[in-house]
């Protein structure tokens, strides 16, 4: 079994995902795929890519579903999901070889492919289903929070964020240090009542989700009803003739 860092740093890098504005366009998932297929865990193998059952390794997947609510009439939810880089990451502690580990310096959970034996215990342990087994390579892979991008001095500063974040067209994804209560992302979480996914699992996920804002349906404070200025259409026109042609 593998230890979590004995002296975890205060820095907890993670994502904040805004469910109020995610339109389910899959930009984050595909941009993640293209960055990471040549990155830390390269390749993100695809099997049968042109056949009956195209299946590949993806670090980020979007789930779309409906939620019904009698008051507001329901909602279509687009829910992006990737590794939440938990504080108490069961995928790490369950690992028999030390391949799965949580970085001391920033809390990112990674897999060292050289030590992974492909036993899949971590994928059983993860309550979020965020692990991705590469059948071809025989090792477990997962979101790296683009560890090879966010610190990379070979990229311009504006590109040093996870691929899913820099590409998101609606701006639904934010990235930063959730261990620092004064960071922009922490303030955002506080303001928008960001929440932990499945807190009952006690994994203390770093990533946070922002709930949809209440819908402005117009029933709470409706504007004044429009009042016709005359009883009939001819009356309306007659009124205008009076109003504008009085001279």
């Amino acid at each position, binding site marked *: 079994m593998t230890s979590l860092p004995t002296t975890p740093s205060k820095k907890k890098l993670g994502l904040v995902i805004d469910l109020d504005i995610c339109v389910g366009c899959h930009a984050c998932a595909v941009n993640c795929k293209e960055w990471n297929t040549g990155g830390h865990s390269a390749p993100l193998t695809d099997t049968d890519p042109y*056949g009956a059952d195209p299946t590949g390794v993806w670090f980020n997947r979007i789930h779309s579903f409906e939620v019904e609510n009698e008051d507001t009439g329901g909602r279509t939810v687009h829910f992006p999901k990737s590794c939440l880089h938990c504080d108490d990451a069961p995928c790490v502690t369950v690992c028999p070889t030390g391949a799965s580990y949580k970085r001391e310096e920033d809390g990112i959970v990674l897999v060292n492919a050289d030590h992974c034996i492909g036993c899949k215990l971590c994928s059983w342990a993860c309550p979020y289903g965020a692990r991705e087994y590469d059948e071809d390579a025989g090792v477990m892979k997962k979101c790296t929070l683009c560890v*090879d991008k966010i610190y990379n001095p070979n990229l311009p500063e504006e590109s040093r964020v996870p691929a899913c974040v820099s590409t998101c067209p609606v701006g639904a994804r934010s990235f930063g240090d959730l261990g620092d209560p004064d960071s922009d992302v922490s303030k955002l979480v506080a303001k928008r009542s960001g929440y932990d996914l499945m807190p009952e699992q006690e994994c203390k996920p770093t990533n946070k989700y922002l709930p949809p804002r209440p819908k402005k349906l117009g029933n709470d404070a409706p504007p004044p009803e429009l009042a016709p200025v005359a009883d009939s259409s001819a009356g309306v026109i007659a009124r205008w003739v009076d109003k504008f042609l009085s001279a």
Partner: protein
Amino acid sequence: MTEGIVLRDERADTSPIVSDEVKYTTCYMCACRCGIKVHLKDNQIRYIEGNPDHPVNKGVLCAKGSAGIMQQNSPAKLQKPLLRVGERGEGKFKEIEWEEALDLAAGWLQDVRSDDPSKLAFFTGRDQSQSFTGWWAKQYGTRNFAAHGGFCSVNMAAAGLYSIGGSFWEFGEPDWDHTKYFMMFGVAEDHDSNPIKMGLGKLKTREDAKFVSINPVRSGYSAIADEWIGITPGADGLFVMAIIHELLAAEKIDWDYLKRYTNASWLVIQAEGDAADGLFARNATGTTLIATATGELLPHSDRKADPVLVGTYTLPSGKKAVPAFQLMAERYLEDTYAPEAVAERVGIKADTIRRIAAEIADVAFEQEITLDIPWTDWAGRPQEKMTGRPVSMHAMRGISAHSNGFHTCRAIHLLQMLIGTIDVPGGFRHKPPFPKPCPPGPTPAGKETAANTPLNGMPLGFPKGPEDLLVDEAGNPKRIDKAYSWEYPLSAHGLMHSVIHNAWAGDPAEIDVLFMYMSNMGWNSTMNVPDTIRYLTDKKPDGSYKIPRFIYSDAYHSETVAFADLVLPDTTYLERWDCISLLDRPISSAHGAADAIRQPVVALDRDVRPFQDVMLDLGVKLNLPGFAAEDGSAIYPGGYSDYMVNHERTPDVGPLAGWRGEDGSGQGRGGANRAQLDAYIENGCFWEKKFTPEQSYYKFANKSYLEEAVHMGWLAMPSPVVMEIYSETMQKFRLAARGFGDRQPPDHLRDRVETFFDPLPLWYAPFADEDKGEGFPLHAVTQRPMHMYHSWGSQNAWLRQITARNPLFIHADTAAASGITDGDWLWVSSPYGKVKAQAKLMRGVNPHTVWTWNAIGKRKGAWNLKEDAPEVTKGFLLNHIISELLPPREDGYRYSNSDPVTGQAAWYDLRVSIEKCDAADFGETEPMFEAQGAAGLPEPTELLRYGANLKGEASHLDPVPMKDWIGNRKENAGKKSGIKPGHGNQIDGDSEKEKE
């Protein structure tokens, strides 16, 4: 925490060398044309990301753009020119050399040109170089040219350009920074998609705006709307007219805006039975007249006149006239447009319609916004501020693809004009080169054509009246697609969906060569697939094909390839030069004008050529003026990039607006600059000229903007663009139908023209409702998933993992009533056939509507997918049960299934019934077509390890500090208080900081 293994030497490489080189170019995975940075390593694509400086996408990139690697890596890429050896449709070809292919094509084309150039039908599909291909058609001399706009956008383009001088489509945008009430009509994920996504994120995050989506389906953008209104398809026009009814009755209209900027005050002659009935009253010099409160009649251009919008006036001729506004108001004040009267047909409760009208009125008139930007109007009158009514609207495909789409779109524009929200702060904003005069630009050329002779103008244009139609003495169509005929007079984008049928039927004439580019017309367009296959393969009694020659250019092994006689393989978008020109389809934003180029970023690895280079070569072989010099040599021997730099359409105006003139200092105008492409590349492959604040709104009447537009060549004169609530152009066609004028419709079309050329917006039921509503109780519409819109995604190894099959989505209650449960297989029937599909139940859909993802279904053997691919076995097309023709009239004639004004294909009109299949029939879709041949393509791989060899070597640099990133676009920060540093999200306290 349990004691366990701790490894100490596993530090991840955080600083790999990402790429050897980064090249900028323009995406072509859809129609957005975002700027991209392509990272290259070991001559492979390592990574494609958005260009943060680019005016379209500001650094973001969608799923399609991010999947560009797999488009480049596709096993469906054609390898070499192909000559058909089997029967059409079998997909049996032999590979030939380019010289043979070009000589063959040139031979066929020369024969036609020497006889009758119009026997070439040249339709270029998803072409992004229409100012070039249209010019090729002009120089060749055929009137039969268009791209795919006839089944895509023409209702939006024409309704906008004949009403407000611009259009929704991708040629305008809501004022995302200021709007407080945004209405989106129908599915609009198709165009301008990254800008709209960015705008929606910004608008919702501001928290002071409401987003209303009027759409039968609650997917995509509608999912994040504050209010989703699940309207019945095709009823949007009626919904809008009911809102207009409410606003007029409550007098919630912007009188000043109507007077100043629209033709609401212009006097319309009321003289039933007279040739001038319904035309504008004019003075001796032809200027339209208005009336003042004292009854004085003045030219509308009189700067001191204060016109009135109501009353009846007597003209010097003795005829009566009333302001256009009054005609409009009288119509929509009728009880037939009251919310109660339309509620059932529209599928929206009367109370809801009334509330939406009240919300619009409240935001427009009680929440007016003012920007402290002084400006000067067209007449030189200084204005201290810019005032806006912050209601904005957008619409595209969901409105466009109905047979009543033109008038519905015009109704939305009328609503915008009534409340004064066009090109004002918080409203809908034009993108340059729009606004244009209503209607804009030149008329269509091709009234006459002659052997070996160019046309006297561009084939596509905007008719201003019956005299501009392309019809013969008897009033019959001259174009193969019947564009600009009495059947579809304002078909400004042509009717690509009618070409194959008409060519097969020889109606109105036979053609010799069908030449198409980049549009899968043999499969998923707006046409019926089995019929289209029949048209393409049908033979005359002598054994020759009814459509004698079919040349097709495509980069991939699409279904249509199988039907071509000669295939000219194109490159991918990453292997070519291209220009995104202000002369055809610009990428400007409301903030400024822009254009862009593509440059080759990866080397060609097969024997294919860019389509535009091929057209230049054919132009030389055919000795076309402009392409070949007098000695027969090429005028642009360097290919398309040579053309992009050196071609001038008019003196000093060429395909690219940036860095013109010898020293590169010209913007918009200037001679050729040999270093122009270098300048573009240096700048990230785009050019942008931003407006000054004073040019930013009221562009239709803004002196500074209008002068700029003249300088840039967008307008001929700095005159104001007057918006048209009342269309005299439409009335001219109607008068012709009533028997006036030199050019009148044939008798059998008089009623049709009379009905649909109403000068005011009109609502009528989509034709399919009228004809076949009975027995087919459900509406059926489609959309493409956002990760595939306007793309060639079904062959893409990554995108097809997201969507490789499509169910028929049905409201749970509707399904329950028919005993249908999730996963059941159904027969979906229309008057034109039936298709088998698998059911998926949902609640966020209008109960009378079913829908599916479009263009997922593939023909067996196409796109180099394996024959058991889900796209083949489970993906289906509604095209199998759509018809490109309406049912026969009494005399047997069949109109195109199109809008009667514009010819826009009405593929959202479809009506269907559903019935559960026998359990024995579960499992595979029908109809199933025979496999098409593989066209010499390599076997697709079983395993993709893309990137395995791209993992970087450690650079052993010290880690750099990481930084927080809120939202994702610095570019968008700071314009609006409370958003920092990106548009994505707002943090406590920022609002105050920003204001300081």
